[in-house]
């Protein structure tokens, strides 16, 4: 773990459940302890409870919630994937207002807002009404405001949603810098690679349940060193009946109507073998996707569910 190890907990969730007013239970007995200065990534498909968990933590900072303790409730910031601002005011006016609401003086709020606008590349649009922003820019504004509050616990809901690659790098840089300064971050994401690269620990959520919390490296180690090769066929009729058993060092993981998923130990050696094996059986290959083992596979192993829906033909 890069940060937070041995630090006091900034957040303690102990068997917390949450139901919406209509009776839908969104979270079941969540247990999670987050150390100060730690970055935790919540990973799971849509509807698994990531946003609800973040919102519940944010809400607990102002209303007592059974089974949930925030060490310093006064300093919690939440950045939603669709941030809420006054559309007819400029980004700068919105940011300064949000900071002033948290008790920052006018001059300090303007200085801090300017600093974070620069970090997130928002200078050029700072004085334009927020209603004219694209989704990605509005999202960056939300992230900038969340970090500018200097909150001890920052909750980020899909921080990469709608962002271009440069802005993604900015988010990663900011995460790194903030955590170095002792900020605790809990973020939800659909991107296992981002979580693996930027989170100290990752929590797998499925159907409102938190099933496992580990470091990314532990999760990846748990799925073994097997690389996955997904091959899509160039013909509509699946030719599985013509396929002989796969060559040594290759095994079938799954068959789908339009392709096959193989597990291999040595990709440089196995890939030509696999293609020869398929072409020998008269199979036309339209695409090949080589996936190193990662959190996506670990998630599937732990939860039995896929992070994203299967691609359809």
């Amino acid at each position: 773990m890069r940060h937070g190890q041995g630090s006091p907990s900034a957040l303690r969730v102990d068997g917390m459940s949450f139901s919406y007013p209509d009776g839908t239970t969104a979270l079941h007995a969540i247990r999670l302890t987050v150390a100060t200065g730690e970055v935790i990534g919540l990973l799971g498909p849509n509807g698994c409870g990531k946003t609800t968990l973040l919102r519940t933590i944010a809400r607990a900072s102002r209303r007592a919630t059974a089974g949930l303790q925030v060490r310093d409730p006064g300093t919690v910031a939440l950045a939603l994937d669709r941030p809420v601002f006054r559309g007819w005011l400029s980004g700068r006016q919105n940011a300064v207002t949000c900071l002033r609401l948290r008790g920052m003086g006018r001059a300090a709020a303007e200085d801090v807002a300017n600093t974070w606008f620069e970090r997130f590349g928002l200078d050029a649009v700072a004085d334009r009404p927020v209603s004219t922003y694209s989704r990605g820019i509005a999202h960056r504004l939300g992230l900038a405001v969340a970090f500018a509050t200097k909150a001890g616990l920052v909750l980020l809901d899909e921080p990469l949603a709608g962002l271009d690659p440069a802005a993604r790098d900015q988010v990663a840089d900011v995460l790194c810098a903030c955590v170095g300064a002792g900020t605790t971050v809990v973020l939800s994401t659909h991107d296992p690679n981002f979580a693996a690269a930027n989170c100290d620990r990752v929590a797998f959520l499925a159907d409102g349940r938190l099933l496992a919390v580990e470091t990314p490296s532990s999760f990846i180690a748990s799925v073994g060193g097997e690389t996955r090769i997904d091959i899509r066929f160039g013909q509509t009729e699946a030719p599985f009946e013509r396929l002989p058993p796969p060559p040594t060092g290759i095994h079938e993981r799954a068959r789908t109507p339009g392709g096959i998923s193989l597990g291999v130990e040595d990709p440089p050696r196995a890939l030509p073998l696999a293609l020869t094996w398929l072409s020998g059986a008269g199979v036309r290959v339209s695409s090949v996707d080589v996936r190193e083992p990662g959190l996506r596979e670990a998630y599937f192993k732990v939860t039995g569910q896929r992070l994203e829906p299967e691609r359809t033909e």
Partner: protein
Amino acid sequence: MTIWRLEWRSALARRRLFLWNMAVPVLLLAPVALSAAAAPHRTAVFGVFFVFFATFGSAIPTVRDAHAGWLDTIFQSGYSRVRWLVETVLAGATLDFVQLFPVVLVLVAASGRAGARAIPSLIFALLLALGFANLLGHLLAAAVRSLAEAALACAATSLLLLHFAGFFRTPTTPWAERAAEWAPYRPLREGLAALQGASPSGPPDSLPAVLAASLGAVVLIVFVRRWTVKFEWPWVD
């Protein structure tokens, strides 16, 4: 004063809407003020318009802000709810007053010398009514689930309170007269009646109405944490 400033800045950022809100009352009320309608009828029209203007103008943006999550954002910041309520109500009332000021001038001009004498009491009564209506708008916004419900609740509640204040009838029983004294919109009726030159039966005594409005404000402020929970996530549909 962050919310106060925010409300004013938001209003002034939409200049066309701000000017429109000044023009519409003039366009609607000036013909009535210049007409030969009886004074009590004119008073009722002006009273309904002023109270609706403030109540709707408070409730509907509040419902919209709550649904958009803006109020949740404000409360999440740790900003005092009492300050939020006081500042937003005062900002709303003063903005309403500024936007209604041109039409008030038209009404005063149309009523001649009697109107000039009624200006101080009318301004006081108008500010009191606008403040109370803004407060009521926030409370109603917390009790409804949609903009349509907010509009309905504002109309029904305002008309009832205007009725209690005697806008639509002359109280004929001692009980009704006593109730009218405590109605928050009574000073507005007295002020508008004075503007029309139709003096009430006795000298206007605003104290009971001010006390009633203040008591209502205090109750809402004391329990603000409880009733504003409707503005927070998770929203009840």
